[in-house]
């Protein structure tokens, strides 16, 4: 038996949200194509960064992988198990292995439950621990994420944003998952706290052999934590490669524009930084442009881009993977 080194395999994942009209007889008038055919893999123990501007479908991708939304089409395999076909009890049991850290630590914790209740509830519903045992496990988890174990009886509103996010992390670790989707876990936090949380996430990854899908829009933070990075634009992934390669040699014009917007913490170099300013707005995901989704704003647009979808291909050299979807490299 050969072991598959890919923990997660996503292929042609689509998540459409219908727009309906009519009060009693609802008919579908259009779809919001939040995620429109993305494919990628995540290796065991790896961190895949997922970046893109607001509304490009990053979070939706994360939720669709965990089946918090049921994908419209495509397949998501976790350890070779097809998640999109799992239902009810089987899916519930599968959730032990895959968890999520949510973006907003203020909204994602139930205000009327104690920390012990929030972190311990997964243990109870999956029949892992109860009573005293559960309490001890919760205290241990709090210690792991750097919180005082005596906090079990406190309520979320008694904590700061960073502490709340640590509670969220403890909750996601409670079931010993293999895979965690970090949905912008740091964007709601102060910069000083962001580093603490990211470092903690890295330490936890080492300690427990976790695999992350790290969704963010802070490009420098993503470079720091990720092994590989995927860049998303309007529901599609335009480029995936190693974290250093992406920053040093971005191929896709969108990636180039995105990276040119990252400020450089050195005033001399910062002054020379050439920003690629994109014209216009992101088109509506209800009615994306024909051909390449980026063709309406691309500074290097060609005629073919407006008609034909670019193919998703590996253009990496020296055995390095560098996937990109752009006609410039065909």
């Amino acid at each position: 038996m050969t072991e598959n080194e890919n923990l997660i395999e996503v292929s042609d994942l689509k998540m459409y949200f219908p727009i309906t009209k009519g009060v009693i007889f609802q008919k579908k008038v259009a779809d919001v194509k939040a995620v429109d055919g993305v494919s990628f893999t995540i290796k065991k123990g790896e961190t895949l960064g997922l970046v893109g501007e607001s509304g490009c479908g990053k979070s939706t991708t994360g939720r669709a992988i965990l089946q918090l939304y049921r994908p419209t089409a495509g397949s998501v395999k976790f350890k070779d198990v097809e998640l999109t076909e799992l239902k009810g009890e089987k899916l519930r049991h599968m959730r032990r292995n895959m968890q999520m850290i949510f973006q907003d630590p203020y909204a994602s914790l139930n205000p009327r439950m104690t920390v012990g209740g929030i972190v311990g509830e997964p243990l109870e519903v999956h029949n892992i621990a109860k009573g005293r045992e559960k309490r001890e496990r919760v205290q241990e988890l709090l210690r792991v994420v750097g919180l005082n174990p005596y906090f079990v009886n406190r309520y979320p509103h008694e904590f700061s944003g960073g502490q709340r996010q640590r509670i969220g992390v403890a909750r996601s670790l409670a079931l010993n998952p293999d895979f965690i989707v970090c949905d912008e876990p740091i964007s709601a936090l102060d910069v000083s706290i962001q580093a603490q949380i990211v470092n903690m996430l890295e330490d936890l990854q080492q300690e427990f052999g976790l695999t992350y899908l790290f969704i963010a829009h802070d490009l420098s933070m993503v470079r720091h934590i990720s092994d590989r990075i995927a860049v998303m634009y309007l529901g599609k992934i335009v480029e995936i490669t190693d974290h250093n390669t992406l920053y040093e040699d971005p191929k896709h014009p969108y990636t180039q524009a995105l990276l040119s917007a990252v400020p450089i913490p050195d005033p001399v170099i910062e002054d020379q930084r050439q920003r690629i300013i994109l014209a216009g707005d992101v088109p509506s995901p209800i009615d994306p442009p024909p051909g390449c989704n980026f063709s309406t704003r691309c500074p290097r647009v060609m005629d073919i881009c407006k008609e034909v979808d670019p193919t998703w291909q590996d253009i990496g050299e020296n055995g390095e993977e560098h996937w990109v979807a752009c006609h410039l490299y065909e």
Partner: protein
Amino acid sequence: MLQFIVRRILWAIPVLLAVTFFTFALVRAIPGGPFDFAGDRSLPPSVVANLEAKYHLSDPLWQQFCSYLIGDTVCRPGDDSGRASKGVLLGDLGPSFRYRGRTVNDIIATALPISFQLGMMAMMLGIGIGIPFGVLAALKHNTWIDYSATLVAILGVSVSNVVLGPVLIWFFALKLGWFPVATWAAEPLFSGIADKYIAASEQIPMWVNIIPKPTVDFFMHAALPVFALGTALSATIARMTRGSLLQVIREDYIRTARSKGLRERAVVVRHALKNSLIPVVTILGPMFAGVLTGTFVIELIFAIPGLGRHFVNSIGNRDYPVVLGTTLLYGVAIVIANMLVDITYAWLDPRVRLE
């Protein structure tokens, strides 16, 4: 907790004093008096003057208020013309001007238990129907279930009891003959105690009357009015529950709960419902106070001798002590209901501290 209750009760005293003062002033500001009858029933001026003197209505207002509040013995020393009132502070609400020989305390002691039983059952029905339907409508948001539940709720709110009551009587009592047409049939559960008071021809204390004997007759008589009142309440409760639950169910922590691998049922009951009950509890408090102290329309239509009619009729009759007594009772009910609401908040939401 105990400290909170004590503080709330202390706070209620100035509130209730203000209620008494303003009601006293307002009711006397209405033109006419308790003994002004029109036409054939009008009394000769000398009789009116005698009656007004008997009830001290010709005294200065400040003295009337004083003796209403703290009793005749303090404010009218040496006066022995009528029966000496002990004052509201000692729980004596005074005599009724219209019902000769009956005190306001007697009226409340007889009528309140009936209104209380009706209101209690209607509230139970209202909550029992309202919350489940509201939850169902919210969970099946924008489906035909939601639309029909909303439609029924809007009907329930907008179809007045003036219409619903007679329709129920016409159909279920007259056409089908399933239920009696009207009146109330409560006997005290502790009939032995009640009998003792009757034998001694004394007023039966309120607590004896308030607990009904669960006889078939009692429930048959109660069915229609409780249904009419309860459905109207349930419509409001259902709309409130639906709206609030719809908001909560979109919260991030509900997604967190799902991602933990909870069953949908547990997500709704444990995480969503309790958080969404706060606005519902807020309206339940005043609703409770209002319904328990009597509902004019329902009691009138079903000929139930509850407290509701006293609220309304006493104003027309210029029966000052009854107006004051019922208003004060309602005030007390509101204060207690709001206190219970606040205690419930603390249970529903740990961020609320009772201090």
